[in-house]
């Protein structure tokens, strides 16, 4: 049942490339994949497409996203999933009714993410026995298509599968066939942030499968929402790095025929930098898609509430939740993925999760209609991000001789692409970000990434200032201090001014 088997076979058949998987070959791959687990056999693509077509448009993620972009709205979408059907139904109900979620989530548990469906089954049984969720998400493969549809039928919003994994082949098939209309995940982003031994090449292959599947649905007249998660390790990921990965994953998806591909970026918790990164991401993704000849890919951008460590104090956390909605709207994101005041305490109850949605929604409202367009500091930041992304991406594409898949894997091997704090052995993780004295995330150590000299000097000058002012040695301690920063107690974070 290990997923490795599948990718091993693939590599024999198909050397890694960005090319679209031919239809016949893909159908064969699907058969092999679906045969791996009992409920795989339940997937009937034509029947699933018909089910999707019969759904009201309001339940289609793609439709709702396009509507948001057309009207300039910023949709709210939480994360969340519990082990049993009843718990999960109750959760979605509360998120929809009390939380006014525009998009509903289904986070899968971590066994499912790693295709350990047997362990997930045990966790599900134990959860049912104990009456509390022992899994950190909804084991959607074990529940299977019919039960998922029971949920889909009950709600009035689109559902997105949030199944942080490098192995999306089974969860993707079941989620889409079950009537979920969105799926979050991508080859480079999730492999570097969710696995240790898994190769980036195999991660890319697995998501090529999923993207090809979405394209197949499209051929049958069903537009699905695919989405890329550039929050990566969530830990001080600077905008330029997130955007580079977003562009690469988007190019890979476009090659497989995906026409609707959302991008996610985690907030860095500096108002200007957050807004600048959303705008830069929008532009750059389209720029590179156009360069590659993809002129019709729809790419809405989601902003994610802070993905690093949160404060345990709920009042402090609520400020971060509110900020998250506010800045997503200011930056022009079309969606915000919300957290709650429970973030540093554990998976939130449905009530706290719904509360986080309302806090975020009011934050969005209070942003009114203004943007930072024309603001000098914002323009500078946006230009720096763009320069960094273009400098490194052009190098990556060059390394692949025009093939994104080859370029990306080669770049990670060489350290030209890198992700901070990654658990993956195929990722050097030499790059070290830290926060500067004005609160911007800067690059302390670029590792082997070929950042432009000018921006790098700027980053380091700013960080040196922080080191001096805070009395921290310029080096890793600065990075570690920045990991903790926002989780610190209020009294430490901002002491009574006279004491400082």
């Amino acid at each position, binding site marked *: 049942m290990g997923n490795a088997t599948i990718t091993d076979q693939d590599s024999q058949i198909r050397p890694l490339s960005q090319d679209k998987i031919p239809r016949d070959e893909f159908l064969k791959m699907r058969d092999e994949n679906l045969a791996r687990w009992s409920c795989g056999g339940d997937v009937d693509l034509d029947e699933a497409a018909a089910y999707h077509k019969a759904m009201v448009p309001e339940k289609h993620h793609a439709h709702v996203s396009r509507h948001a972009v057309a009207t300039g709205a910023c949709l709210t979408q939480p994360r969340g999933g519990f082990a049993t059907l009843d718990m999960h139904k109750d959760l979605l109900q509360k998120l929809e009714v009390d939380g006014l979620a525009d998009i509903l989530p289904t986070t899968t*548990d971590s066994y499912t993410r790693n295709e350990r469906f047997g362990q997930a089954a045990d*966790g599900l049984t134990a959860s049912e026995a104990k009456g509390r969720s022992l*899994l950190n998400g909804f084991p959607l493969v074990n529940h299977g298509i019919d039960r998922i549809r029971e949920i889909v039928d009950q709600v009035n919003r689109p559902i997105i599968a949030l199944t942080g994994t490098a192995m999306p082949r089974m969860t993707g098939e079941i989620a889409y066939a079950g009537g979920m209309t969105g799926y979050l995940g991508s080859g480079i982003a999730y492999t570097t942030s969710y696995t240790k031994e898994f190769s980036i090449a195999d991660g890319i292959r697995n998501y090529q499968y999923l993207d090809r599947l979405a394209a197949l649905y499209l051929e049958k007249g069903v537009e699905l929402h695919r989405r890329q998660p550039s929050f990566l390790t969530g830990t001080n990921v600077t905008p330029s790095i997130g955007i580079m990965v977003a562009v690469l994953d988007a190019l890979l998806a476009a090659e497989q025929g995906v026409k609707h591909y959302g991008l996610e970026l985690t907030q860095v918790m500096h108002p200007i930098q957050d807004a600048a990164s959303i705008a830069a991401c929008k532009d750059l993704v389209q720029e590179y898609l156009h360069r590659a000849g993809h002129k019709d890919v729809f790419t809405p951008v989601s902003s994610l509430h802070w993905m690093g460590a949160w404060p345990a104090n709920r009042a402090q956390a609520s400020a971060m939740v509110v900020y998250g909605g506010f800045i997503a709207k200011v930056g022009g994101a079309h969606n915000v993925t919300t957290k709650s005041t*429970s973030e540093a*305490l*554990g*998976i939130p109850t449905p009530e706290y999760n719904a509360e986080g949605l309302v806090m975020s929604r009011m934050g969005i409202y209070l942003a009114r209609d203004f943007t930072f367009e024309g603001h000098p500091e914002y323009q500078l930041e946006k230009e720096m991000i763009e320069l960094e992304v273009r400098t490194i991406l052009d190098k990556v594409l060059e390394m692949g001789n025009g093939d994104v898949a080859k370029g990306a894997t080669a770049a990670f091997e060489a350290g030209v692409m890198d992700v901070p704090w990654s*658990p993956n052995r195929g990722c050097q993780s030499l790059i070290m970000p830290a926060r500067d004295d004005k609160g911007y995330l800067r690059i302390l150590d670029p590792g082997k990434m070929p950042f432009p000299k000018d921006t790098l000097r700027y980053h380091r000058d700013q960080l040196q200032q922080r080191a001096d002012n805070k009395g921290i040695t310029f080096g890793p301690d600065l990075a570690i201090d920045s990991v903790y920063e926002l989780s610190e107690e209020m009294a430490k974070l901002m002491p009574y001014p006279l004491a400082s």
Partner: protein
Amino acid sequence: MSEVNKGVLVTGVIGSDTHIVGNRILSRALEQEGFRVVSLGALTPAAEFVEAAIETNADAILVSSLYGQGELDCDGFRDLCTEAGLSDILLYIGGYLVVGDQPWEEVRIRFRDMGFDRAFPPGTRPSDVTNVLEQDIAARRADAKQGA
């Protein structure tokens, strides 16, 4: 492995858990404090902890579990150790050990009953660990000498 160090520690994140940041910071800090740290990284099966502990003659295993499924992953961990002949090894665990925000005292007892000598709640900093770890290791070594 010389005796000059304060102890040999095996660290890692158990199960399908990818949360490496805290574990990495903790490992680095303990190393700077003079422990020898064998760091297994994220997504580490229980058995690998035990193997590494045997190989390195470790004083303690420090398990991280953040993602909520620690309760499932750690079931039988002490037995694994005992079966491998590590009956007196120190077992620490830290992180978000269960799903959701459950009363810490209950969680602590649950993990003590599973055979962990100490459990550390979310928010633990390396500085909260070093002293007590040093004492526990010293006590364990003294016991071992007496036993011998």
